[in-house]
């Protein structure tokens, strides 16, 4: 295996603040930059969520205008999926962890890595700036379905706001692609001696597959976005059929179909779910192993499951389109492959639970969130059965059942992964620990508000309440369902307050947390063989080799109950 490029052992860290912390090529700095960017975007996206909840709890007060509401929903979803979870989990933790885990001094292409971050920054700025332009931010949903997103006449946000949305997404995709190339190359080519693929920590497997999925599926969105831009600005008709009428005006378009966009979008959109969820599961495996003091159950089976998920996730996109007007014969096929993808997913969940068996479980904050993640996978995965089978999706499609469901999966599983990862790797990032007491408060505040909140949304969906509805009181049939809105909003406030505890803990611990040594959790993987925080080049001495599996926990005999992956066999 090749030694990682660039920095050799004694290579010096760049001096000067700018080169060190701003335009850095060090994967750890870049990872933290991504993470902090995601924190900022998360604050915005959460404020938007709170505004949504305020409107829904007190619709008679009309706190926001209807067109603003649609923008809020669109931007909340877009920011959370692409600019918070993707950035923090995949780009943040991926960058920080991969070289440390595979035993490399940096990513394969450090400069490309820096570039990927500096491409996303203007992306964030454009996205946020779109709130300020005439007509407001994009308002066609995070799914940006045309004709709504294609025609300025269709909705106020479909003017400059939608254009900025598309440009920001283009920057996001460019950045994510550079990141993905780096991940794949680094994991495949830059592993240290002895680090065979089957000795990789599971989280590295999840980053690898996540990157591969991203590389395969994002081009579809790129194409979709370009065609949409052409329809918007060059008068083409990729998504626009003949005979569109607005007011008294018939538009000159002809020959396209809006369904084309939906296929392209979900060809990305579904794999994207796994791009986000897999790394969260990976973090779950790492944290559970370290705090249950035993290897994760079924390493091989988990790797195979991840691979099967990767393959299947590319061919299930149509389950988002059962009632879209797509040929109903396809509904049959997409239902079957969708229930099939639930199988490897359940296997991962069951493996996580079995990984607790006969362990010695320590309930530190990181572990609490990892366990919460397992619960959320259960609820999210089982809820998915209702939506993945065409027959019941018929009723639940576009209802609050869907909103509840995806907040458990791409919302909660991912966020709990991020939190577990933050509590766990914070010492390696900053050389200090986060406060355990505050961590527990954070966890219990989060769980007691989040679970009931998103569960209640499932019942609202059962009652027929629909998503993206500014004022549900217009209808009679949903009276019971919308009656839950006030409670849900109060729970959302509780959830928001709980996250303040996290932010306080995060920033306080950066400067005032208790200092830690190399391996505060007595963990086994390579990142714990270097000092905390890890220096430039990751190891001051030679890069360690992998001499055994990454999870030598629960070992009897020695003074310790674990053996480092880098420890030579006797």
């Amino acid at each position, binding site marked *: 295996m090749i030694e990682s490029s660039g920095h050799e052992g004694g290579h010096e860290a760049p001096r000067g603040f700018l080169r060190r912390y701003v335009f850095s090529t060090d994967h750890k700095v870049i990872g933290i930059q991504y993470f902090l960017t995601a924190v900022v975007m998360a604050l915005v996206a959460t404020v938007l969520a709170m505004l949504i909840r305020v409107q829904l709890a007190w619709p008679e007060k009309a706190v926001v205008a209807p067109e603003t509401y649609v923008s809020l929903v669109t931007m909340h979803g877009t920011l959370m999926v692409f600019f918070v979870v993707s950035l923090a989990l995949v780009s943040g933790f991926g960058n920080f962890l991969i070289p440390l885990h595979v035993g490399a001094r940096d990513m394969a292409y450090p400069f490309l890595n820096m570039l990927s971050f500096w491409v996303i920054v203007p992306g964030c700025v454009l996205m946020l700036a779109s709130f300020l332009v005439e007509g407001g931010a994009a308002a066609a949903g995070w799914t940006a379905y045309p004709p709504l997103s294609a025609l300025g006449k269709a909705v106020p946000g479909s003017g400059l706001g939608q254009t900025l949305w598309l440009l920001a997404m283009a920057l996001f995709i460019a950045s994510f692609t550079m990141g993905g190339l780096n991940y794949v190359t680094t994991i495949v080519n830059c592993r240290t001696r002895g680090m065979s693929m089957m000795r990789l920590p599971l989280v590295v497997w999840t980053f690898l597959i996540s990157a591969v999925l991203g590389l395969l599926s994002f081009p579809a969105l790129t194409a979709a976005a370009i065609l949409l831009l052409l329809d918007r600005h060059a008068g083409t008709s990729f998504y626009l059929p003949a005979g569109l009428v607005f007011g008294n005006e018939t538009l000159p378009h002809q020959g396209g179909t*809006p369904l084309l966009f939906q296929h392209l979008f979900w060809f990305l959109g579904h794999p994207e779910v796994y791009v986000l969820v897999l790394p969260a599961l990976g973090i779950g495996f790492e944290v559970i192993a370290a705090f249950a003091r035993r290897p994760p159950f079924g390493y*091989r*089976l988990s790797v195979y499951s991840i691979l099967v998920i990767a393959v299947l996730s590319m061919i299930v996109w149509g389950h988002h389109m059962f009632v879209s007007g797509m040929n109903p014969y396809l*509904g049959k096929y997409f*239902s079957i492959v969708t229930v099939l993808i639930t*199988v490897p997913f359940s296997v991962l969940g069951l493996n996580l639970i079995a990984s607790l068996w006969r362990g010695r479980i320590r309930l530190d904050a990181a572990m609490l969130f990892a366990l919460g993640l397992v619960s959320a996978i259960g609820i999210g995965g089982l809820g998915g059965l209702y939506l993945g089978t065409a027959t019941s999706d018929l009723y639940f499609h576009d209802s609050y059942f869907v909103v509840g469901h995806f907040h458990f999966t791409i919302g909660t599983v991912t966020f709990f992964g991020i939190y577990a990862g933050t509590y766990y790797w914070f010492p390696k990032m900053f050389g200090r620990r986060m406060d355990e007491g505050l961590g527990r408060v954070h966890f219990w505040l989060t769980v007691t508000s989040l679970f009931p909140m998103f569960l209640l949304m499932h019942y609202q969906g*059962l*009652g027929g309440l629909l998503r993206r509805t500014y004022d549900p009181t217009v209808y*009679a049939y949903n009276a019971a369902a919308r009656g839950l809105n006030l409670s849900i909003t109060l729970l959302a406030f509780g959830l928001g307050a709980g996250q303040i505890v996290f932010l306080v803990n995060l920033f306080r611990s950066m400067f005032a947390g208790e200092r830690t040594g190399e391996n505060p959790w007595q963990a086994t993987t390579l990142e714990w063989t270097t000092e905390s925080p890890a220096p430039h080049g990751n190891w001051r001495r030679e890069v360690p080799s992998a001499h055994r599996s990454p999870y030598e926990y629960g070992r009897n005999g020695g003074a310790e109950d674990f053996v480092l992956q880098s420890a030579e066999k006797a």
Partner: protein
Amino acid sequence: MNKLWSLLFLAVPVGSVGLFIWAPANGHWWPKPLSSYGADIDYFYYLITVITTIMFLVTELLLTWAVFKYRSDTPGRASHWHDNKKLEITWTAATALILLWLGVYQIGIWKDVKFPGRFPKDAQLVAEVTGRQFEWRFRYPGADGKLHTVDDVQTVNELHVPVGVPVKILLKAQDVLHSFFLPNFRVKQDAVPGVEIPVWWKSTEEGVFDLVCAELCGWGHYKMKGRITVESPEKFQAWLTKTWQEQEATR
């Protein structure tokens, strides 16, 4: 102390089950199904619910039990146990079989609802339905039974259908996507510009119900509300004739 903390994890299964009992008792369930296939769809929903409830409880209780039983303050070290072929094969195969069965089972219902080739042969073409920002337009074939002739009856946001007979509509959209949703009848179908999609159902009860737009269609999406009146075939005919006469009178 550790014991207590680990037991707190019971909150998730206990709370969820509590909600599951509380919700239907307080009206948080779906409306009674009022179409012939509505009952089949609901039946399938209950079937999934049985399976998910069992899987949910088993996994949550195992999780809580493990956290409780294998606390760090129990004596001894963790075991290095990490594989069990039999167990792995069993739960992979078991979930695969159950889920595959579920997926295959529901195809029959889906076909009955959506496959145009399987629509009831005697389904009565009631109306052409066009979604536009932010209203529903209906065009009923008049006395000649044909659409787009001079005797078509047109209404806005007012859909009438006869009870007890299979009815068919032709769904269109003229500007952006909309979705034709009748919660009580378990009917949902997106309306797509440039495409005409047939939809059928058979209402089993008379009454007046909401017609809802279920696909984001702009700032006024939330108020794109229609009304469906299900009535006896005689009353339906009478309403059609009356509406036709009113339409003629104002022409």
